[in-house]
């Protein structure tokens, strides 16, 4: 049981975006995907969700090859959480969350769907704002709506593409804590592309560090966020340590 890829490579034009990626995400674990801009974080997430077709290599969901599945089948296994931006043409909060039931709409009854959406709204503290337009919400509220949508999708794997980039510190913390709770409670596997290394180290079970489309390091944060890897992947000199058990990464100078 895992969402995995083997020997995954992607080229766009002449540029190699991903090359020889082997990775597996198990249910019940939270993995953070880190790396510089353009290292291939978003590309890997898109390939794992089948939004991009890889040039070579294979993605499989619980042993089934991804191309052999319909989009709806994939959507019942994997929920994708994009950055919380963009115009949604006047969709309301409850309509946005209801969309998470789209892959189940053939088997859902109206009342079952309503119950699930209502439960999700309550869980993510969205009750009372069901009819508000998504476009009018704050960044933190939008992120909660998108997480609620992923929640009602009842997928075994969550793929989050920089969910915290547009959020202030408090809402970053809140969003990551919510994902951590979903992982622990529902035993879903979550892969988060994220820039904040300290937050990644704090919330993830393990990290994967990408550098120019390849995996440079993977494993516990202590082994991945070493000064040497950070110099190689980001071109910075950084100090890494813990304060009261909380990891921190402070960039000191350009390497």
């Amino acid at each position, binding site marked *: 049981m895992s969402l995995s890829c083997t020997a995954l490579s992607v080229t766009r034009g002449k540029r190699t975006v991903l090359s020889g990626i082997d990775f597996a995400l198990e249910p019940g674990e939270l993995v953070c995907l880190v790396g510089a801009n353009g290292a291939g974080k978003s590309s890997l997430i*898109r390939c794992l*969700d*089948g*939004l991009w077709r890889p040039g070579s290599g294979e993605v499989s969901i619980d042993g089934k090859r991804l191309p052999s599945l*319909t*989009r*709806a*089948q*994939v*959507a*019942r296994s*994997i*929920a*994708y959480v*994009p950055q919380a931006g*963009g*115009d*949604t*043409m*006047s*969709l*309301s909060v*409850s*309509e*946005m969350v209801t*969309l*998470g039931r*789209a*892959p189940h*709409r053939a088997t859902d009854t109206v009342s079952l769907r309503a119950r699930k959406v209502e439960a999700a709204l309550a869980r993510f503290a969205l009750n*009372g704002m*069901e*009819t508000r*337009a*998504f476009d*009018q919400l704050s960044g933190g509220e939008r992120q909660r709506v998108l997480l609620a949508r992923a929640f009602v*999708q009842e997928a075994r794997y969550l793929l989050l593409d920089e969910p915290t980039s547009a959020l202030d510190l408090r809402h970053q913390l809140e969003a990551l804590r919510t994902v951590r709770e979903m992982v622990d409670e529902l035993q879903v596997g979550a892969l988060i592309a994220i820039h904040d290394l300290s937050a990644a180290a704090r919330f993830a079970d393990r990290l994967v560090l990408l550098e120019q489309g390849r995996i440079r390091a993977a494993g516990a944060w202590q082994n991945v966020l070493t000064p040497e890897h950070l110099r190689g992947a980001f071109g910075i000199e950084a100090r890494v340590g813990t304060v009261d058990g909380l990891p921190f990464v402070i960039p000191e100078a350009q390497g």
Partner: protein
Amino acid sequence: MIAQAFARRTGAFAVLGLLLVTVAGFATLHGVQHMPLTTGLKAMIAPLLPAGWRADVPPSYQAILLTLRLPRTLLAIIAGAGLAVAGVAMQGITRNPLVSPYTIGISPAASFGASIAILASGDGGAGNYAPVVVAAFAAALLCAFLVLGLSALRGVTGTVLVLSGVGLSYLFGALSSTLQFVASEQQLAVIVHWAFGSVNGATWQAVTVTGLILGIVLPVLAAHSWALNAFAAGGDEVASSLGFAVARTRIVITVAAVLVTAAIVSYAGVIGFVGLVAPHIGRLIVGGDHRVLLPFSALVGALLLLLADLAGRTLFAPVVVPAGIVVAYLGVPIFLHLLLGRARHRA
């Protein structure tokens, strides 16, 4: 709160439906030959009844109602509703509020087709209308399939669809202008008159063809309401991640929107604005859920065009101003009122 929203929507449907029926009735009975309500109703149901039961209605009334007024009212309703749902669909899949059914070049293409037919016919298209309709329809479809073909080469995304549509609009616009340049004075007048969209001279054939196509297209679009919501919520990637086959869905929706628009343009000429603004009015009143928005915008579009036609033929009677012109005068104030009202409400 959800129950409240549901009640509000139901209310909006009821009010608009009632308004549409009332205006349709009034528009059908009102004209140069005004008819009392009872006479009008009797005349309309007379052909449906067995011979002995028919009320005594002057045959001229019956002729006016059945050959002139009723097809006109029905064509206005169908054209307004059709352009509105096509607009909702196109705005939804391109996730672009500036898009209308004409964005992919249907109207200049239809004008081009109609111009060819008018130039080709000896009498300048005045005598026989059928070739003009067929040519306009064929040219509109040709343009739409060129747009879809171009988009398919580059991957059918919303942006590519809009951009290739804009490009082909200019191409067909230039072709039409070239034809108008070489046309005679009389032919030019016919071409220009054709381009003013209106439901003047609506026939039962026009009503049947457009009605039939709308009758097929509307359920197809309604069946894609979830997909349209997904596109609107986050574009291609989100729609795909929610389980929709993005490219196929976009083609089905576009073809449906194109068919209904092309049919309407062919019979009623270029009636702009309804397809752009009816979806917005719909969104401002009932929100963006396409399961509700599609039927509601259809009502809005039908009512807009019906009112425009009624105003166009009564305000300056006996001059009949084409509905395609009046609809902008009517729709812009409504649209701005709702838009500004919402902005105030939000602030």
